[in-house]
């Protein structure tokens, strides 16, 4: 009897927990298609960072950028993100909610790790980007 009750409790716990903690994983296109029905629900949004859209504020550590897929652009706002971890054009996954003002507010930002090796397409060399650093003497 006690055992059955315990099995039941674990099942209830699991079922309840699942339905509360399901997070939809969408692309910008899917997000736009779903429109208002998913506003303020927890979502994971995965896409690419639009070139030249990264806007980072050093003082407030606010980060804004545009995530895109095809023609669909979704503005994303995030606080406490790691802007040095990503650059134009890379794949990124953000977790947060989509508000009715059309901005995705991210609480968590994950850089998508590419599984396959692909040679760099645009010749943006790290050495150019961080040229000034190379002139400074390492500690």
């Amino acid at each position: 009897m006690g055992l059955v009750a315990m099995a039941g409790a674990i099942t209830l716990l699991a079922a309840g927990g699942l339905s509360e903690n399901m997070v939809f994983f969408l692309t910008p296109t899917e997000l736009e298609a779903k429109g208002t029905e998913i506003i303020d629900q927890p979502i994971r949004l995965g896409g690419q960072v639009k070139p030249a859209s990264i806007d980072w504020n050093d003082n407030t550590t606010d980060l804004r950028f545009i995530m895109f897929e095809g023609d669909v652009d979704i503005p994303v706002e995030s606080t406490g993100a790691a802007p040095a971890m990503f650059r134009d054009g890379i794949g990124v996954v953000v977790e947060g909610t989509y508000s009715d003002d059309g901005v995705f507010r991210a609480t968590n930002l994950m850089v998508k790790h590419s599984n396959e090796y692909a040679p760099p397409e645009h010749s943006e060399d790290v050495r150019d980007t961080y040229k000034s650093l190379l002139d400074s003497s390492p500690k």
Partner: protein
Amino acid sequence: MLSALGYGSVLAALIAAGIMALAGYHAGLARRNIEFAATLTRRAAYFGFFAMTVGMLVMEIALLTHDFSVEYVARVGSHETPTYYTAISLWSSLDGSILFWGWILAGYGALFAFTRRSEIDAHQRVGGRVVAADGGLVPSLKTTPLVIAVIGTVGLFFFGLLAGPANPFGIVSPAPLNGPGPNPLLQNHPLMGLHPPMLYFGFVGMTVPFAFAIAGLLQGNIEARWIRDSRRWMVAAWAFLTMGIIGGGWWSYEVLGWGGAWAWDPVENASFLPWLTATAFLHSAMVQKRGGMLKTWNLSLMIGTFLLTLLGTFLTRSGVIDSVHAFTEGVIGPLFLGFMAIIALGSLTLIGWRSNRLYTAGQIESPVSRESAFILNNLLLVGFTFTVLLGTMFPLLIEAIRGDRISVGPPYFNMVASPIGLALLFLMGIGPALPWRRATSDHIKKSFRWPILLGVVTAIAAFLLGMRQLLPTITLAFAAFVLTTIVQEFAMGIKARRKLANRSFVGALLDLFSRNGHRYGGYIVHVGVVVIALAISVSWTWKTERQETLRAGERLAIEDYEVEFVEVWGIEEPQRFVIGATFETFRNGKPLGQEQPRLNIYHRDPSQQTIGTPAVRSSLSSDLYLTLMAIDQDNLEHATVRAIVNPGIVWLWIGGMIMGIGALIAIWPRGKIRVRAASDQLLADGGTYQLPSLDIDSSAKTENLERTSPSKTEKSIE
């Protein structure tokens, strides 16, 4: 050249696995003693290990000499990668890790064969033939080949993968001049050389108990010796798996930069699931060892654990789940699924076929007994397995059925893990203090007076000292409860030894470990678990985090730490470009020294990956964890840093080491050869396995006898 040699040795191992299976099943299932086939099985196991060792060494040589004509080297090697990471890139991608996996599997097969090499006593040999005392079957010519045969069967699958779809020795022509190097995440921390091998030794090690399960089912003989031997292998594999999981958490903490060790990532879960079922088995096996009950249950746990290791490999290797660990994709998925289905169906069929022999008339006498505690522990562990499995697989099911992509976040897992984990923690204080069969109210009063008192006092003290959070208070109280029980158990054991053998305190303690390592080693493991539970609870509840952009000389204050920005810098290394920032750190105003969190951009894939290296300053009370978030690229005047203070997290690793030490005590060999020979003889004679004077657990039995009431007789159910 290397490719041919490597591929040749894989083929040789495949043939060896075939012989292990064929000769092993033949020797094990025939109704007579076939010494030739049994010996051949063992030799095939040795040869398989030799062949796989050659294969692995060939791959290491190819990696270290940068022979890019070997396909795997062309995929994960590069001239720029440091030698250490080149050597360990054996397991940085699919094919190499299956090669490594296969080598370990072959190693387990050979080790098992080796431990069973001299089991035929001179008196069993009559005129060149092996004959048991009663003219019947000799167990060592039956069980041993069967277990090796099952290992060989599993080997056929893995070596087959290596010979076919996951061949690491393919030839690239013309050979490229350089390769991309291993996945950046996997060449960023030295722990990568330790954590995956530990996990693999654990995962693959589960094959041996599984082989015991299948061999036992085929023979229809799942008795005392079977459970003891298989448990021993299970403890070893379990210990490796434990170290692998803790090591994985440590790696994740040191590399991933979010300041935690465990995120319920599907691949983390994949390593945790077989650990849960293996832990359940280690407890339920004692019930079977004692009264013969739970045979089917134990078999299911052994088989289930093996299946979960395959599932773990499937999740990691098939790229089915998008996670930081799923570093590779391939065609291996369906093959794994098929293999798992065959194992599951085959095992179920065997259990059904043997169901009449698996039934034991024993039953639980009282709900207040150690048996009941173990059964409750098993239900909790299996329930835990079920909920974690559900959360891990649910997104896959939903995607397969509805096409929606969802994820189940850490809140779900934390929500189910907290109550189940606490219940398990509590049971750890109950089970060991209860006697087998039935506890009297006197016994309960005597055993639980101090543990309960200390648990309650701890809770009240915590409250008075200002602790208001429920979960850590409960954890703390339970921890005090469990630790008191364990101390009591040791005290009783030591007292008994001192009286019995007139030993010093330390001598008596060593006696407990050497005479009854399973039990007292197990208690040490429990201490490790308690330490980990406390570390988790404390570090989660009081973790604090701050993020600020600092200019030179500016300070960030967090808890009792201060972090002062000095400068940013960059270094070019052969395989990567490193951006770092130097900070002076202080605790309570006193300087601690410099810390340099870094960002690494690997040349392998500069447009994609930036891997952080957080700076971690550990102490027994708390860690200061610094992650470099951004730097001022133009003028190098400021840097953004995230500082995390993690109280007590170091105790996660310390607890893990305590668990490892406990497991080592539990499996440390203790003059077993005589016992084994004698027990074989007894089994061969058709007698029951009861050797109180030689049994390694005899001290436990006498002690339990003292505490078993009311009848004070030991019942042996066979």
